[in-house]
């Protein structure tokens, strides 16, 4: 068993750019990921930062194979999943899960919370779904009555906790969290982050946490990867990155974090 849960080698993704399509012939391709090499270690929390449009979500969607890379390889637990089809991916899917950015659109508005959490369990033929749903609700700190709620009857923070419950119910090895707190107010953010941190520790998960906000990444992640225009510009331990950022882009990001001013006088 190797130390790396994920390995990406020369990972590339390009999409045809239909806006620049000439009248005749194929559209030029828009390079979104430009050959990424990295690995995600078992049990770590990897932060993936970068500005809007830097390719974070695209990278994440390649990892959970919502997108098929157009170049390079993705290895999950030593197995090449770059070009696996739906049928071949199916048994692997219970091992990597994803939590989405927008808690409103990532939960089917016409399914109840209980159904939302149970559906993946049924799909993978898990025994005793009821108990597993109850346990997942319990783990994210919900009373059992929540199971009969619809998503629109909940707050943003609560919906994101449903997203977490659904992801952990399958007992995956890996969870990808794509900007999961960026739509929440500060106190819900803290609540969701604390919950996620505790669950990762308790369940022994590996987590990739995507964010554009370094201050959120700092408190959660052990290692950070900085993405800029589809390329990795820096990759290091959290403490080292904050102490001595090497890439110019990282310094720019760091400078953008608002620091509490000790001199400030509250009038």
């Amino acid at each position, binding site marked *: 068993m190797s130390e790396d849960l994920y390995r990406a080698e020369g990972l590339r993704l390009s999409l045809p750019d239909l806006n620049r399509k000439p009248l005749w012939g194929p559209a030029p391709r828009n390079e979104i990921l430009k050959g990424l090499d990295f690995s995600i270690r078992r049990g770590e929390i990897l932060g993936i930062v970068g500005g809007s449009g830097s390719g974070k979500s695209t990278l994440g969607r390649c990892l959970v194979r919502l997108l098929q890379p157009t170049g390079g390889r993705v290895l999950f637990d030593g197995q090449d999943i770059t070009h696996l089809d739906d049928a071949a991916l199916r048994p692997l*899917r*219970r091992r990597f899960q994803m939590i989405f950015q927008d808690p409103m659109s990532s939960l*089917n508005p016409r399914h109840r919370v209980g159904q939302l959490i149970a559906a993946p369990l049924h799909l993978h033929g898990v025994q005793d779904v009821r108990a597993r749903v109850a346990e997942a609700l319990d783990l994210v700190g919900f009373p059992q009555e929540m199971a009969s709620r619809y998503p629109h009857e909940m707050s943003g923070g609560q919906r994101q906790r449903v997203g977490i419950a659904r992801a952990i119910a399958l007992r995956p090895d890996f969870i990808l969290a794509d900007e999961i707190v960026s739509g929440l107010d500060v106190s819900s953010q803290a609540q969701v982050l604390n919950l996620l941190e505790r669950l990762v520790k308790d369940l022994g998960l590996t987590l990739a946490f995507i964010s554009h906000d370094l201050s959120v990444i700092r408190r959660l992640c052990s290692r950070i990867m900085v993405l800029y225009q589809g390329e990795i510009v820096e990759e290091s331990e959290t403490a080292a990155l904050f102490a001595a950022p090497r890439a110019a882009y990282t310094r720019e990001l760091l400078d953008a974090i608002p620091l509490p001013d000790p001199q400030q006088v509250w009038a």
Partner: protein
Amino acid sequence: MADARMMVRRQAGARLWLSAFWLGLVALAALFAPLIAPHDPLAQDLFLGRMPPFWVAGAEPGYWLGTDSLGRDVLSRLIYGARIALTVALVAGAATCVLGAGLGLMAGYMRGWVDTVISRFIDIWMAFPPVLFSILLIAVMGPGLISIIIAIVIIDWTRFARVIRAEAMGQGAMDYVASARVAGRGRISTMLTEILPNVLPTIVVLLTLEMGIAVIIEAILSFVNLSIPTDDATWGGMISEGRVSIHQAWWVLVFPLIALFLTVLAFSQLGEGLKDRYDPVLR
């Protein structure tokens, strides 16, 4: 705020119950026509021609809504006419819905070549003038209930297909679809369990509208004598006959008109009412 919402809900409830009540009445009349109808709808009696409805002086006892120029009982003909109206509404509405919504759902969710083929097909289809098309069809197939139903399906499936395609496309872009895929759900299963419940409210509204439209189309075709070849009672046929003798016997025209109007209105309100009542997102 809460009060305003209660008002809307109560109105929605009234709309649902009133339309369901009327359609239930029509359905009962259609189902039990032989038991309910006071007379044979085809029996002529030239001595009883153009008798007025019961509250007008000179009415013949037992002929509640009067008789037409051939002495046939208007109420009995209305009741038997409900059979044909409802059959057309249910069969044509359901068939149009299954065909149109099915193709629209596939095109909108699967995109790619499936969408290209179906959308092209819809465009070509809609380039034909539909009324001409249906008259041509009936001319070829001969008038009759089956021809009418096929004509309605052929004319109207594109309405479902276009609307549902657009809806499915919008829903398909939502993260909950990606989320189902991450959980390992296959494409067809995702379409049926994730997308379909979210376009179902629109399908229900379209379906009930379509049933109303089917009733009207049947009436129009009866009116121009392209519907049922025999002299079976149809609402459209009654309206057409009643038009001729409007000055001598207004009731022959007015009662089927009212039945037609209420039925079409009830169908359209039923869809909206069901949506308000049962869609969890709106509740």
